[in-house]
Structures are given as C-alpha cells and as structure tokens.
C-alpha cells in the first residue's frame, strides 16, 4: 500500500531530500512545520475548500468525450482541469500555498514559470490575497508564451526575465532559489510543481490530490466502477501526481507521459524518467538529464511547461517500483493530438496536456474498448501561436 506512506523524513525512499544552501534550511523547516500544522487545522481546510469552490470553480467536470472515444476505440473521459479558473490545474496549488504563506506572515511570493500557467496562477492568488508577486521566467519561454506574460502583468505581478543558462524553466527555478536565499525572511517561494526540496514535493502533491479525489467520485458515479487506466503528462509531475495519487492503491494502470521532443535518440527532448539518470537538481535527488560528469543538459519540448530536465522525486520512486508506467510522445504527436481534440471535441488542450491525449494512440492493445481517464490539465489558448508555427501557418 502506498497512499500516505511517503515521504519519510523528507525522502521517497532514496529520492527527494533537501539539497539546498544552508541559508534556506531553516526556512524549509519553518515551512514544513507550518504546513503540517495547518493541514490538520479544520478552519484552514474549510477556507481553502471555499476558495477552491467559489473562487476557482471546483469541482471540475469529468467529461465523457464521445467522439474522441470513437476515434480512439476506447471509452475516454477527460478530467477538465482546463476549466479551472486561469485555465490549468496550477491554481489548486497556488491557492493552498498562498494561504499558507499569508498565514506565516510572508508579504511577498515569488515563483518560477515555464508555460506561464503557474506564473498566472500565482499572480492571480497574489492579487486576490494582497501579496507582492515576482515571477521568474526564461526569455525563451517569454517569447513563446507572450500571452501569459501579459496576463501576469495585468494581474499586477512583475515578470523578471531570466537570461542565464538555457533561458527556460530550469533557469527560472535557479533564479527564484537565488532570490529566496536573499529574501527568505519576507518571501515565500511558491514552487509550482512536485519538485524541489522537501516539503515541496509532498505539499504540492497534497494540494493537487483534489484532482484524483474528485475523479474517483465522478467516475464511480458515471460508470459505477474505477477506470482501467489513467493518463497524464509529466513535466515536473504535479498534475500527474494529483490525479494518480488516490488511485495508487487501486487496480488502475497509470501512465505518465513525458515530452519526447524530437525523439529520445536526439538530445532534443525533456524525458528524464524515460531517458535520464539519477542525480540531484534543485534540491532533490531524482531523475535528471545530465552528461557523464553530472552537468545538467539542455532540454527541448514544444511545450514550455514540460521543458524541464528534472522530475518530482515521488515519480522517480513510482518508476522504480513500477507502479506508474512512464513513456513519451514527440512534439509532432502532441501537435497532432492538439488538432485531434480540437476537431473531435471542440476543446483546445494545452500542448502539455496534448501529450497525454497523444498517448491514446500508443496505449497497449489490451485497453481496446476499456475505460480510460485523461487528465486534461490545461487549456490551449496560450498555445495557438506555437501550434500555428508548428503547422506552418502564418499568423
């Protein structure tokens, strides 16, 4: 049995840990203590529930995608996190952490963002709760996710361009960690995925678990039984863990889909679980993409949100235990799925989520006519420009 067993002392067996400068250690201790205390506080839970319901729009629907099902030869339900306020699952976590930060007396939040979804979700709650907000974003991502940059600014956040390293999500995390080191007394680092040092992988998972909890109730209500499989895309892995977690002890097969970019045999991908090795990045022992000396390698994915060389340590453990099957789909397959869902269901998926949709085609044969749930983690309005470019359309 798996649920609530990990982490133990900040570890998912050998994975996880706290590989950060000493300056941050007392802050991580303080954060863990505050979180564990607040987690048991009934008033806090009610408050968070109320925001999730009345502000964010939970529960999100579980939608039977009839035409997609016909096309795929499987009975496919979509968990509609794309309908959550701000357009992705990220808000579940930012609401939880921002309330926690406020409770801890912090006046400022900072965050990293890749696709901009976490940045927007952070800027949103910061505006609502009256917190100062700075978002770090690589300049490559700022270019390909321009719409979200503007959204964050509209919400009153400062978007700080990151020009170091590969100028993507990884470097935005580096800069956010550096900022936090300098401003740790007043600032909460609102990390957006199940990565980073303990307690983040645990805390972000807990805030995202709501996806799986709802899905379980909804599918039982709709079908009278559990699904045969669940598919979710994996960058850092927060939407995947969110939907997987409450099914971990059930006979449900779980598929985590990484970004294969231009192919695992090229160096142009972002699939550390499928093609990386064990290492330490951003405070956590996990799977990373690295060279033989341990230098972190540049990544590539058409989806900015998956374009990251590491992955949550709990995913590393589930890979090792074989509880989740990790596989990958290419940029091209993701674009195809982006079009497929648009044309069959009238839903534009985020390019991240399109990776999960694309996997339908690659599902093992035994799943023919079986019951599948896909976590549609975000909506694709932000990706229209990138999709146009990828399909050779001039805008």
């Amino acid at each position, binding site marked *: 049995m798996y649920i609530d067993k990990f982490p133990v002392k900040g570890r998912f067996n050998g994975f996880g*840990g*706290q*590989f*950060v*400068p*000493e*300056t*941050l*250690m*007392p*802050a991580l201790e303080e954060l863990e203590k505050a979180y564990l205390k607040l987690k048991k506080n009934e008033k806090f839970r009610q408050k968070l529930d109320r925001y999730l319901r009345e502000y964010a729009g939970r529960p999100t629907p579980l939608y039977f995608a009839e035409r997609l099902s016909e096309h795929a030869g499987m009975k496919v339900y979509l968990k509609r996190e794309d309908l959550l306020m701000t357009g992705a699952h990220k808000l579940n976590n930012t609401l939880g952490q921002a309330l926690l930060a406020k409770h801890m007396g912090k006046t400022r939040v900072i965050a990293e963002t890749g696709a901009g979804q976490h940045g927007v979700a952070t800027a949103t709650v910061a505006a609502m709760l009256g917190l100062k907000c700075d978002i770090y974003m690589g300049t490559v991502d700022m270019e390909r996710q321009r719409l979200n940059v503007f959204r964050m600014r509209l919400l009153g956040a400062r978007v700080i361009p990151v020009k*170091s*390293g590969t100028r993507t999500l*990884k*470097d935005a995390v*580096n800069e956010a*960690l*550096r900022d936090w*080191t*300098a*401003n*740790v*007394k007043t600032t909460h680092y609102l990390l957006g995925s199940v990565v980073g040092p303990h307690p983040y992988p645990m805390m972000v998972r807990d805030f995202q678990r709501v996806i799986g909890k709802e899905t379980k109730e909804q599918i039982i209500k709709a079908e009278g039984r559990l699904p045969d499989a669940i598919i979710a895309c994996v960058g850092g892995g927060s939407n995947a863990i969110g939907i997987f977690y409450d099914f971990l002890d059930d006979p449900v097969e779980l598929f985590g889909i990484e970004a294969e970019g231009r192919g695992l045999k090229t160096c142009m991908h972002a699939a550390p679980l499928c093609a990386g090795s*064990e*290492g*330490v*990045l*951003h*405070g956590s*022992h996990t799977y*990373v993409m*690295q060279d*033989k*000396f*341990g*230098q*972190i390698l540049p990544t590539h994915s058409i989806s900015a949100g998956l374009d990251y060389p590491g992955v949550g340590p709990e995913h590393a453990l589930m890979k090792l235990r074989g509880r989740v099957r990790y596989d990958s789909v290419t940029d091209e397959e993701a674009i195809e799925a982006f079009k497929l869902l648009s044309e069959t269901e009238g839903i534009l998926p985020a390019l991240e989520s399109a990776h999960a949709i694309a996997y339908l085609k690659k599902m093992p044969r035994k799943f023919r006519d079986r019951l599948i749930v896909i976590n549609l983690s975000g909506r694709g309005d932000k990706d229209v420009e990138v999709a146009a470019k990828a399909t050779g359309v001039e805008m």
Partner: protein
Amino acid sequence: MSRIAAKFEELRRKNEGALIAFVTAGDPTISATPKIAKTLEDAGADIIELGLPFSDPIADGPTIQAAAERALKSDMNTDAYFATIKKIRKTVKVPLVCLTYFNLVLKRGVGRFMKDCRESGIDGVIIPDLPVEEAKEVIEKADDNNVDVILLAAPTTTEERMKRILDSTRGFVYLVSLLGVTGARKKLSRTVRDMINLAKKSAKKNVPTAVGFGISSSKHVREVIESGADGAIVGSAIVDIIAKNIVNEKKMLRDMHNFVAKLKDATRT
C-alpha cells in the same frame, strides 16, 4: 592534522588571519588555471579554493555564474579538473579546496570523488547545496581519504543547527556573511560579528571560522579579521579581475597579484 588545520595553526601562531582566495578552475581557460593558482599563492593567499564549475550554481551570483559558464565552454569537467589540480600541486604548496555542487560529486561516485581529491592534492571540499542533514556519507568517505568537508553556516542558522554544523565540519566552518548569493558587495553585512560570536560560543572544540560571500576589499578583510574570524574568503572580486582581462593574461596575473597581496596585508592586524 590536515593541511588546512595546520595552516590555521601556523597563522594563529603568527597572529594572522587566513586569506582564502577563490577562482573557478578553467576560467578563462584550463591552461590559465595553474598560472592563476601560482599567482594567488605568491601574492599571499593562505588557502586556495578552486571551483569545479556546475551548470546550475544556485548559490552563486552573476559574477561566478559567468565564470562557470566560461570554464564549461573551455571544456572544464571533472576529469580535466583533477588533472589540473595535479599540475598545480607540482608548484603550489598551500592547501587547495574544491568548491562544487553535489550533483557532480554524486555522479562520479562519492567515494571515487574523494579518492580523486586525495590523489590529486585537494585538501578539502565545499559543497554549498549539501546541508549538514545530507552530508553524512560524504563526510565519512572524505574522512577515509583525509579530505576535509567544510560545512557552511548562514545568518539564518539557529544555535541548534550551528552546533550540529560545528560538530560535523572539518578544517574550518564557512560563515556565509549575508542573506543571498555570492558576489562583491559595497558594505559588509551587519550580521557578520553575530555569526562569528555564535560560532565561537557554540563550538565544543576549536573550530576555525572563515567568512565569505560579499567580501571584496582590504577593508572588508580587515573588518572580518578584527571581528574575530580566523579567515576571510574572497571570490567574486578576484574573478572580476579575470573577467576584465580575458584578452590580456599578463595584466590579469599582475592585477590579481597586486589585489591579493593587499588583501593579505589586511589579515595582519
């Protein structure tokens, strides 16, 4: 007694503070590093820290990030690093300390990394993303090879944590002078004196203290030593001299010599 401990002992007898100089190995080129190390020693550096560059140096500010990028572009890697150290050891006598991030140690294998340290002539290692909680195996394997694992303490470090850090550190304790990343600062942080006092008060045995981060002038070095520290660590200000003179190695070494000699003077209070 380790070479680092012996150095602090020697300086204590002479009533001097230690000047610890940092540069990134391979910056601007692999072939320049032995000359730079020799210059630092000749100018009076008591201990030399040689950074093994990592792609994602989260504890470093822009100056040392840029140095790491230059070094990685010059093909510096872990193999080249230890080969360079061997070369440096032929002429340089002062203790050498490797500063790097944990992933590079883990990837090589902690045991093998420490053995390479010993065999190439590295006396100590500083791993800024390895807090005391995660350091147990590293310290054991370093001890087996007579390599000192130098732990860091920060302005946020509580008394309880300071005790654990002092119990586990080897050679000296690295006091991070400010909240933030490495990089030259105009003024010395006000927390320095408090940290030195806390470290002195909390130590069960004599653990030398050295203050780093933001120390960029003779004035800072003097203040640090007068505040009771046993050493001052200067990094970004020296790396700046490299960055400004990439095309003129002669001038780089001359400017570095003059600057470091002045810093060393400031440790003789």
